[in-house]
């Protein structure tokens, strides 16, 4: 790696050649206000002009986020010329920006407000024209409000990089430019999978999850029996909402907080995950034995299910008919649990804390309501919303003691359930149980290393009593497409495929706490490269801590089948735990 000598504010430094001025300055201990750029070049439009500095050899000012350092370059951040230009750029952005900061969901984590503070931008536009505004609130998952958009293009880049989809794009020209789905449609009328990756990179409140916190207040007022469940990935990230280091597992504190928020029961979706594995592994074995449609593909990620329905509507019989874990959990709460506790299912309100925005949509699917039209799950909060709820309730999260989930009926879970939150986790958990079903034995290796890690497509050949079963794992729809095109062409060699919507799996889901380096001064400089692995590690650690690591060895699950469901994939299980899919038109 070659080094170049530069000067910043007159001080000499040696930095790697090829870095942008912004990156180089960061490594040298400077924090140039910057807005549109993100994640070393994932978004490098150089469009917002907030990071302008003076650099020798360039005319005018340069955008430090895209301008590379070169030997002998002298960079000035603090000259009046640069200071004034940065401030005016921010003021211009603010002049075309919704001024209602206190009502914005990004309040507290808004990058525009941060640079406004840094640059001293104060001027408010009272008279000038504004770009015509679109607010799309039709989707249950994501709100798009163009009055807050700064046209950085991060969302466009993320949708493209993660999924190869480009659901979002620039529209119109000049002052009328906006970002949106084609024809400025709602996400609901576009082939958007609602994964929320765009939300997680948006610097402002232009893209936000649709908050459902109010529903909890309503349920309380209505005197509902509220059962809350938390997805595995939530515990690996919730601490970040309260300034804890990325990768700190906070299961105990999370439970303690939920117990102080007035929920009647606090359970772990891991129980649902164990149940999913029971059903899914049995479904897989059934398909293998009875010549069913293979490869079978997991269906716990609602982003992926949306994608399949939009883009592979002709291949939906490959999807496992199993509901996702929190939906199974909700269905069991409103049947088995209600019965055992003498509760009217209509009076039970199931809240899911999820790392995901697509789960908000999923819970509204007609296929996930019972015969009476009662949904399995009533309310989905993202990890971020849980953070809001905890803050709102005056709870000092970091000072909470560690507490245990409720243990009755649906409280036990295994390590297999925990790792659902990482890419490859469902596959690994399913393999543990499928192996057992097929052989009657436990696999000598609990860990299936080949399906771990952040590789886009992972594959493994598992020997089950002399038969080789080929499996593959993909996350992000760009990778899923590769496998799905093989499936469609009939050339797929796999028996079982796990697909997760978000790259990295649920730990990096669209509902997880924002990872914005500018707000994380105590994290490493390369945190955007490492946070997925750190959160994943927190879950793998918890898996290893569990004494029981196979879903079929969960005694409450065994009890549930014995007392209520009967056989896995049996009649009652089918009624409560399985669902169906339907192809959807991309533009209606």
């Amino acid at each position, binding site marked *: 790696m070659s080094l170049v000598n530069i000067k910043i504010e007159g001080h000499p430094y040696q930095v790697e050649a090829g870095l942008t001025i912004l990156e180089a300055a960061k490594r040298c201990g400077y924090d140039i206000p910057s807005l549109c750029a993100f994640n070393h070049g994932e978004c490098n439009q*150089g469009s917002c002009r907030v990071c302008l500095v003076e650099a020798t050899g360039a005319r*005018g000012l340069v955008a430090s986020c*895209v301008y590379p350092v070169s030997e002998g370059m002298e960079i000035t951040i603090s000259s009046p010329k640069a200071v*004034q*230009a940065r401030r005016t750029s921010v003021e211009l952005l603010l002049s075309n920006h919704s001024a209602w900061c206190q009502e914005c969901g990004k309040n507290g984590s808004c990058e525009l407000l941060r640079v406004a503070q840094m640059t001293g931008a104060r001027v408010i536009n009272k*008279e*000038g024209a504004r770009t015509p505004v679109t607010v799309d609130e039709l989707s249950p998952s994501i709100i798009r409000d163009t009055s807050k958009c700064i*046209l950085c293009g991060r969302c466009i880049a993320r949708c493209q990089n993660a999924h190869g989809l480009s659901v979002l794009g620039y529209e119109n*020209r000049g002052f*009328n430019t906006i970002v949106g789905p084609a024809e400025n449609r709602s996400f609901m009328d576009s082939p958007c999978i609602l994964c929320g990756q765009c939300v997680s990179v948006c610097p402002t409140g232009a893209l936000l999850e649709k908050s459902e916190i109010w529903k909890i207040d309503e349920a309380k007022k209505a005197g509902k029996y509220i059962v809350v469940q938390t997805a595995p990935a939530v515990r690996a990230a919730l601490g970040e909402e309260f300034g804890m280091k990325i990768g700190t597992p906070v299961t105990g504190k999370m439970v303690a907080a939920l117990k102080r928020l007035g929920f009647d029961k606090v359970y772990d979706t891991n129980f649902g995950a164990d149940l999913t594995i029971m059903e899914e592994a049995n479904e897989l074995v059934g398909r293998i034995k009875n010549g069913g449609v293979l490869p079978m593909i997991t269906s716990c990620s609602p982003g992926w299910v949306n994608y399949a329905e939009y883009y592979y509507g002709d291949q939906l019989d490959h999807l496992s008919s199993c509901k996702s874990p929190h939906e199974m959990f909700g269905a069991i709460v409103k049947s088995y649990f209600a019965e055992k506790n003498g509760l009217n299912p209509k009076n039970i309100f199931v809240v899911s804390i999820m790392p995901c925005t697509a789960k908000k949509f999923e819970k509204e699917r007609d296929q996930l309501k019972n015969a009476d039209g009662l949904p399995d799950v009533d309310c989905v909060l993202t990890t971020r919303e849980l953070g809001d709820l905890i803050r709102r309730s005056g709870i000092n999260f970091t000072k909470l003691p560690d507490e245990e989930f409720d243990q009755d009926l649906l409280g036990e879970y295994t390590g297999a359930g925990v790792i659902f939150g990482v890419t490859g986790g469902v596959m690994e958990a399913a393999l543990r149980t499928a192996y057992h079903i097929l052989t009657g034995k436990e696999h000598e290796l609990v860990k299936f290393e080949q399906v771990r890690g952040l590789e886009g497509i992972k594959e493994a050949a598992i020997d089950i009593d002399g038969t080789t079963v080929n499996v593959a794992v993909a996350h992000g729809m760009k990778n899923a497409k590769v496998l799905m095109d093989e499936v469609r062409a009939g050339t797929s060699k796999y028996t079982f495929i796990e697909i997760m919507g978000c790259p990295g799996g649920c730990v990096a889901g669209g509902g997880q706490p924002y990872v914005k380096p500018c707000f994380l001064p105590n994290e490493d400089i390369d945190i955007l490269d490492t946070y997925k692995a750190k959160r994943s590690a927190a879950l793998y650690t918890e898996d290893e801590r569990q004494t029981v690591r196979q879903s079929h060895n969960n005694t409450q699950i065994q009890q549930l089948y014995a007392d209520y469901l009967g056989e896995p994939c049996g009649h009652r299980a089918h009624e409560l735990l399985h669902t169906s899919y339907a192809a959807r038109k991309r533009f209606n």
Partner: protein
Amino acid sequence: MIKTPEQLNEKIAACSACLDGKFKGEEGKRAVVLCGGTGCLSSNSAEIREKFQKVIDEKGLHDKVSVNQVGCFGFCSQGPFCKIFPEDTLYRMVKLEDVEEIVEKDLIGGEIVERLLYVDPATGEKVQRQDDINFYKKQHRIALHGCGTIDPENIDEALGFGGYQGLMRALTMTRQEVIDEVLKAGLRGRGGGGFPTGRKWQFAYNEAGDEKYVVCNGDEGDPGAFMDRSILEGNPLAVIEGMVIAGYAIGAKNGYFYVRAEYPVAVRRLRIAIKEAKEIGLLGENILGSGFSFNVHIRLGAGAFVCGEETALLNSIEGKRGMPRPRPPFPAVKGLWQCPTIVNNVETLACVPYILREGWEAFAKYGTEKSKGTKVFALGGKINNVGLVEVPMGTTLRELIYDIGGGIPGGKEFKAIQTGGPSGGCLTKEYLDEPIDFDNLVAKGSMMGSGGAIVMDEDNCMVDVAKFYMEFICDESCGKCTPCRIGTKRMLEILTKITEGKGEPEDITALEELVHVTQNGSLCALGQTAANPVKSTMTHFMDEYLAHINDKKCPAHVCKNLMQYKIVKDSCFGCGMCAKQCPASAISRTDYVAPGKKLAAMEIDPQKCVKCGACMSTCKFKAIIKE
């Protein structure tokens, strides 16, 4: 098929003899030549040409007189033009009904049709030959070589008029020698920035890689500039030749013309020229047996001014929104499809064949120390001779406006000249004796741009002019970067406020801040220069801004809110024509009869007046004024 330089030389000799014969009238033949530029075509020059052919056929003259079309004469305000060889008589503003007279009188009778000759506005004398017209006297045609002389739809005429001789010489040189020749000639980009063309070529030459591209920027968009169109319409082969030379120099195999869709004639002629060149082997594989192959493609713009910016243009060719890319990397390193690419504008490439044909010294002998050669300007606005002129760099503004342009019409006073279109600035009369070159214009707060030169007189309000250009930029901003997207909008809002009489003193400071950030902080040249009209009018005409803001007056009586029409009662004959024309019924008769007049004078009710100006243009007695 022409496969060797020898074969081409033979062909050139034949074509050249043929063309010479036409001009010199060999064997007693005469030639009628009609301008086929867009301006003249819109004044029916094609129909006039057909009629000439018809009348000549009818009179049985077709053996003795040929009818031809050529590219733009440049003197568009006097079109359509008709020229008769060998006498070299130039008729201007020819109409369909004039055809028979020209045939009868001139072609048959040998007598000049005096009434169709150009009249020198200064002396009132009739001028027979083009070269004797002041408009043409100081011009030197390098980029416009062949325009208005040869038939652009006939490759033989282009070859007979110097075509492909530059390339033939280039192919005998090494690539580096070709680049050096262009460097020594001192050719700088004619599209706006004035970057040395040879250096651009050198950068691309130095890059490794098999795939390189030459792109010709024909997305001419500065309002008021149309030289690129005229060149493409007048001598497309010259631009193709320039592109092939550039391709040879940097090691490219493909070239792309990016031309505005609004230029259908230029595109058609370019297509014809490419097809003809391909057919006789002057484009394609192994050109002239040199082993060098080059193919030319055409891409059409789709109505976005910003695509004149080279990186936006490349994005457009790549099928994307024409939004500029941050630089570096420069196109010479990573351009079209990430390959090394040079982007040169039409006029620049049109100069290249001349440099290679005549040698760098012939080019460099024109111009100033750092700006060599000639430059084509599109003279427009308040000037007598509207049209295209090509003059050596270093010509003064005075020569351009008065000697060539014939001065300001109606005896009005020169106020300013806007060079460089919406990216440029205005220069006032104290700069009239400044030589025009790239650096001097920048030093004086304007720029060369693509060569638009709009003259303004005392009736132009400079705040309104700044607003006009800002409106244009606002419409054409791609919307990518903040200063250009929002900053230009805010500047336009402030300028509108000022012209409406609602300006406040703080607006000047606000404009200055916006000028600073758009100029220094915008992503591309469009944004960086967007504030130039504001900046330069503020520099030279701050008094006009202040008059609008403080006195609520528009000194040029242009801004409607700040002016009113008034009838000078003592001049009014009371004819009442104005009242009849007034759409708002704002004019009524008074009781006052001016001395020496028979009818009572009229007056305008300022409350009802919509300031359309209909009364003023109706009044024969100049009794209505603006104040």
